[in-house]
Structure formats: structure tokens, C-alpha cells
């Protein structure tokens, strides 16, 4: 079993994963955080794109379940030496890992790799396509605060165009019965995005009015200076979250951010640290639990396969 994206994943499966994650939140808060359900299993984190946070989260998740965890950064130089993605996949596969978590800068690359290996593959983010564990941890964070996702209004704000987090969240939230609104300037919205079942807003006040959840997305530095938006100053003025804009959302609206934040660009610095509104650090905690649940679930199907195998 692989977890490559949230598109088309049924509600029951998402609920199973979230329920399973709950149990790991408790485990992670104990002094002894370690269990042994993945003992003997090998997890390789293959990161073709740098990410300290996600990689650490997967690494902790694997270790807390008792797996042997290897981190592999496939630098650009290795790719320049001529090794293709499929070569890398075959090489790793020959080492008999049980799970590969893969991040890659190209959309679809994780799926391509998964087609060439016999182990389970978890997508840790591929290009602008999907980042399913981020959507799951966001859902878990929301569910713990609001009991259910159904009927909630969630505003996703910022660079939707390049965001795999936005796409995975749109699919998951729609499946779970939430109302999704997107808020961005037109330069940061992909074509025909409304066909994914979202309400599109270009005015942030309209977009976050009476929202239950406000998810801010990171705007990459190289996109700030005149290419997609004229300046960080202008971006913050119209699309950055500050107290004044937040006032139109529900009084108890939660603020989320997948990190790392650009303080003062997409989100007001004080607001980000407001423990009454911001659940940004909770998201990080939920991330480890969700990734443990994903590892648990995909390796369960591996065991079943082994049991069935007469050899």
C-alpha cells in the first residue's frame, strides 16, 4: 500500500488514519515514546528536495515505532552524474526497505518511483502536486479542536498555484464535508481551480469572513519581488493575515500554517505566536503522530501480503 495523495481517498480511509493518529499523540507525550510495532522494518527517507522539518518528522515517526530509519539526501550532484529517478528507485529497492518516504521537486515523481519498487511509498511532497501527510496532520489538528471537519468553512490563503499543501487539503477537506475557500491574487491561482470544488476569493476579507479555519501558505522568496506579486509590502497589505483582517473571521477561528513561516509577509508575527488563535506548533506535533499512523497502516498491509505469500 502506498499513500501518494489525497485525491480520491475515501472518507473512511481518512477517518481510519486520523483515529489511528490519535493513539499516537498519547504515545508521543509519554516519557517512553517508543513502541516496537515496526521492529525489524526499514524506513528510508529519500529527499530529492531539502526539508529539515518534514524529514525530521518522518524520522521521529519511524524511530518511535521501532523501525530502522535511514535518511538519504539525493543531492543535485548525484542527479547530474546521470542517475535517473528510476535508477535510484531500483537501487533503493534492492536494499529491501519496507517503506520509502519520498520528497521530490517534480510533480508526479513519487508516483513514478512507486511504480518501480516493491515496498510501500509515502509521498512526502511532490512538486506542486500533493503533500498528503500535511493535509492529514492539518485535518487531525482541526478535528481535535472542532470535533469534526464537516460543515466547517476553511479558507486557504496565499500561493495556491505552487502549493501541494493546498491541493491535498482541498481534496481531503472536500471529502470530509468542509467548505473550502481559496484566497489569493489571480497570479497565484492555478487555472480552473474552481472545478476542484472550491469558492475562489481575491479579496481576503470576503474570503475569510466567518471562516472557522484560516490556513496560510508560505510564499517563496523568489516569487515575492515582482514576478508573481509586486512586493512583500503589497502582498502583506492585501493578502497577509493580521488582527484587523482576522476580525471578520469567526471569533474563535484557528490560524494554521504548514511552515516555515515568513513572518510579516503572509502572517503577522504576533498573530503567529498567539497561543489562543494559532495552532501552528500543534500542527507540528500532529505531524509526527499522523506519520506514525501512515507508517503503521502501510506496513500492516505489507505484513498481510507476506502472510498470504506461500513462499
Amino acid at each position: 500500500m502506498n499513500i501518494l495523495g489525497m485525491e480520491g481517498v475515501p472518507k473512511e480511509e481518512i477517518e481510519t488514519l486520523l483515529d489511528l493518529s490519535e493513539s499516537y499523540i498519547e504515545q508521543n507525550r509519554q516519557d517512553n515514546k517508543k513502541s516496537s510495532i515496526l521492529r525489524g522494518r526499514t524506513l528510508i527517507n529519500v529527499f530529492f528536495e531539502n526539508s529539515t522539518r518534514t524529514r525530521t518528522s518522518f524520522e521521529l515517526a519511524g524511530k518511535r515505532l521501532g523501525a530502522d530509519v535511514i535518511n538519504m539526501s539525493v543531492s543535485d550532484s548525484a542527479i547530474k552524474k546521470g542517475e535517473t529517478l528510476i535508477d535510484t528507485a531500483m537501487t533503493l529497492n534492492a536494499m529491501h526497505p519496507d517503506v520509502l518516504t519520498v520528497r521530490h521537486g517534480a510533480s508526479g515523481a513519487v508516483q513514478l518511483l512507486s511504480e518501480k519498487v516493491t515496498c510501500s511509498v509515502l509521498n512526502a511532497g511532490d512538486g506542486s502536486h500533493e503533500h498528503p501527510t500535511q493535509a492529514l496532520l492539518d485535518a487531525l489538528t482541526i478535528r481535535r479542536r472542532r470535533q469534526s471537519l464537516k460543515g466547517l468553512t476553511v479558507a486557504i490563503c496565499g500561493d495556491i498555484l505552487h502549493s501541494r499543501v493546498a491541493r491535498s487539503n482541498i481534496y481531503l477537506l472536500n471529502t470530509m464535508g468542509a467548505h473550502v475557500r481559496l484566497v489569493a491574487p489571480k497570479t497565484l491561482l492555478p487555472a480552473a481551480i474552481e472545478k476542484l470544488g472550491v469558492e475562489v476569493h481575491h479579496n481576503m476579507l470576503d474570503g475569510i469572513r466567518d471562516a472557522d479555519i484560516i490556513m496560510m501558505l508560505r510564499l517563496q522568496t523568489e516569487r515575492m519581488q515582482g514576478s508573481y506579486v509586486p512586493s512583500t509590502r503589497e502582498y502583506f497589505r492585501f493578502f497577509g493575515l493580521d488582527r484587523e483582517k482576522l476580525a471578520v473571521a469567526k471569533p474563535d477561528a484557528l490560524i494554521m500554517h504548514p511552515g516555515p513561516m515568513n513572518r510579516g509577509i503572509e502572517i503577522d508575527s504576533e498573530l503567529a505566536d498567539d497561543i489562543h488563535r494559532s495552532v501552528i506548533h500543534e500542527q507540528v506535533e500532529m505531524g509526527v503522530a499522523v506519520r506514525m499512523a501512515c507508517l503503521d497502516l502501510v506496513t500492516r498491509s505489507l505484513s498481510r501480503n507476506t502472510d498470504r505469500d506461500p513462499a
Partner: protein
Amino acid sequence: MTEQLRATEQLRAYVNARLLDPSSGLDETGTVLIDGNKIIDTGPHLFPNGPPANVQVIDCKGYCLAPGLIDMRVHLPEPGGEHKESFETASAAAAAGGVTSMICLPDTDPAIDNVAVIEFIARRARETNIVKIYAYGAITRGLEGKELTEFGILSEAGALAFTDATKAISDTLVMRRVLSYASTFDLLIVQHPEEPKLARNGQMTEGEMSTRLGLAGIPAVAEVIMLERDFRLVELTGARYHAAHVTTAAAIDAIRAAKARGLPVTCDTAPQYFTLTDAATAEYRTFAKVSPPLRCEEDRLAVIEGLRDGTIDVIASDHRPQDQDSKRLPFVQAEPGIVGLETLLPLTLALHRDADISLLDLIRRLTSAPGELLRMKEGRLAPGLPADMVIFDPDHDWTIDAAALKSRSKNTPFDQMPVQGKAMCTIVGGRHVHSLMG
């Protein structure tokens, strides 16, 4: 000498054929008589009492007999990409597909931008000697879009027309001079109609599918923007202009309007653009990655309408072989292209069945239309012309099998697709270069 010539002469009659000759409008059962490499006569009334004894008779079993197909858009990546396709493999693929003449794009390595490379192509074509191989000359040196190549000299050396293959001439001043200079010699300029800056980094057509896949999109208007600019320059210069592989409703409308205004513009499309949509790229299927990209359903229907009403003059395969290593990659890194020589005929014939376009009208787009456009003698069934012909069964059911393609590369999104219509015999200068007729 005369005796020797007589000895090599060979009279052969292709009888019981449905003759399709678009240039004369002929669509009747009859006979084609050839002498060696030339057509002597054609028609329904040839040999009412049966052919004389000195004539070899070939029974066409009621199949269609048409001029051999002229594929005016073929990437034959030799020199430079022999691992993807050679003259021999491309020729075998062409023969199997009923193509008797192919015109190769200049994006080889080195590019066809000087006489030496044109002569290399001509020599390799002679050596290979299966189907006829012609070449385009590059518009600009190294296909860089800056300095003009020697149009006059290249044209004398055999370049049939000029194009920078899959690169648009984007600099407006350069394009103006290209068209002005080409019109001096009455040469045809073939443009890849895509505004390159608007298409920059684009991997597929922009729309719901590109959004779902998280791939950078190329907006459909990138095509018409380039065309509308070019039409102004055509009006200014009077040059003959051909838009390659048009794919969008807006572009076809613009061409229709330009033709109505009397501009000397023509265009072609490729079977993938009236057969597939961007839905074929689901699951990141790189075999459906092409340039220009597959479009939405409305555009696909507009291409068919453009063929029906005559706005689109030519159907060319846009054959572009890519080896596995160029396709088994993340979508963004994969090379664009589809091999098309062997699927050109059946995919085109599907329009007869599905879109109710007459056989003669479809065959015109594959024979006399490109022949006239490129001022070739091929593309017609007429006395004195080369005996380049295809005998095809329009009803033959078969399934496209990528592994069985003659092309060295097997990059087709049509693998395992059931189709109708097959070249049963391909004849180049009187030689049978492909035959399933036993």
C-alpha cells in the same frame, strides 16, 4: 542504350482498385498502369477487355489505391539522435504506414542550417532508398531565432521549405525579415505557433488537468497570439506562411478569418490533436506529452471542424521518436513527442467513420495538399508522375501495438488502441517497399 532501357521497363497494372486521387477528384473503381517508376495511365476505363499479356497484373481486391502519403512533419533525429531513430528505421516505419515521402524537420544535431547537412540528408536518403526523404531548412542558424540561414542556396540544394521545427520565431523584427526575405524567393515559411514566453516552463495545456497534476500549464491562447502577430507580418510582406500543428479553436478561427481575407496562409494538424485531449496525460503519462500540448475537448472538436470545412489544409504525423530514457522520467523532465508515421493513416481514417468526412477529402490532406504546398511532383495519380502509391484497406480492423512498431522508438499513447484502416501495400517509384497483399 535504348535496348537496355527497354529491358528494364516494366509494365504493371494495379487492377480492381478504388482509385482515390484528390487532385483530380477521382473516386472510382479502376486501374493504374505503371511503367517502371512512373505512372502511365489511370482510370476506370483502362483495359476494358483486360490488360494485355505483357503487363504484370496486381489485383487490389477492391482496396483503395491513392497517391502515397506525404508526411510533411517528421522528426528524423539523424544526425545526432540515431539511438532514437535512423534513416532506415524511420523509412521502414513510413513504408509500413503508407508514407512514400517524408519531409524532415531541421532540428537535428547539427541542425539543417547549411548545405553540408542538406547534402548529408540527401546522401543518407539515397543510401537508405526505401521511401523518399526530403528536408526542411532551418530558418535561423542553429535554430537560435536570430540570424537567417542561406534560404536561396539551401533551397537550391533541396530544402523544400523553412522552419525552426519546434521553436517559434519569437522576435518580431527577425520574423518580419524572415518573411520578407522568403517572399523574395517565394519560399514557404513554417512556424511553430506558440508564444514562447507565455509557454515558458509549461508542461501541458493549462486547465483543470494541469491544476490537478500540479504541472505548469501553457494557456491555449499562446497559439493564437503568435498566429495573429504573424498574420500582420504576412500581410505586410506577402510571404507564404504555414502554421504547423494547430491545436486550438481560437487559432483555427484566426486562420479561417485570415484565409477569408485572402492571406497566403495554410496550416496542418496531427492526429493526436483530433484524437486525444489532455485527459490522456492523467497519471503523468509522458507518452501523451507533446509540443504543442494536447488540448481540451472543445479544441479537439474545433480541429475536426477545421478539417471538415477545409480551414486545416494538411494532416501530418509530427512523428517525434523518443527513447525510453527520454520518456521514463518525471513529466517535467520527459521529452515531448509521439511516433506517428505508422498511425497517421488509421487515425486519420477514423474521421471518415466518426466525423463523416469523405475519404477523398481526408486523403487530400495526406497527399495532394502537402504536395502542392511544398511544390512537389508527388501526391497525385497522373501520367508521367512517380509511381508513389499506397493501397489501403479502409475497413481492416487491427490494434496498435507499440512493441510491433517499425520505428526504433515506441513512444505512442495509442498502444493497444483498436483502429480501422491499414496500408496493405506501399509503392515508391514502382517498388513495393511494404506489402501485406501476399
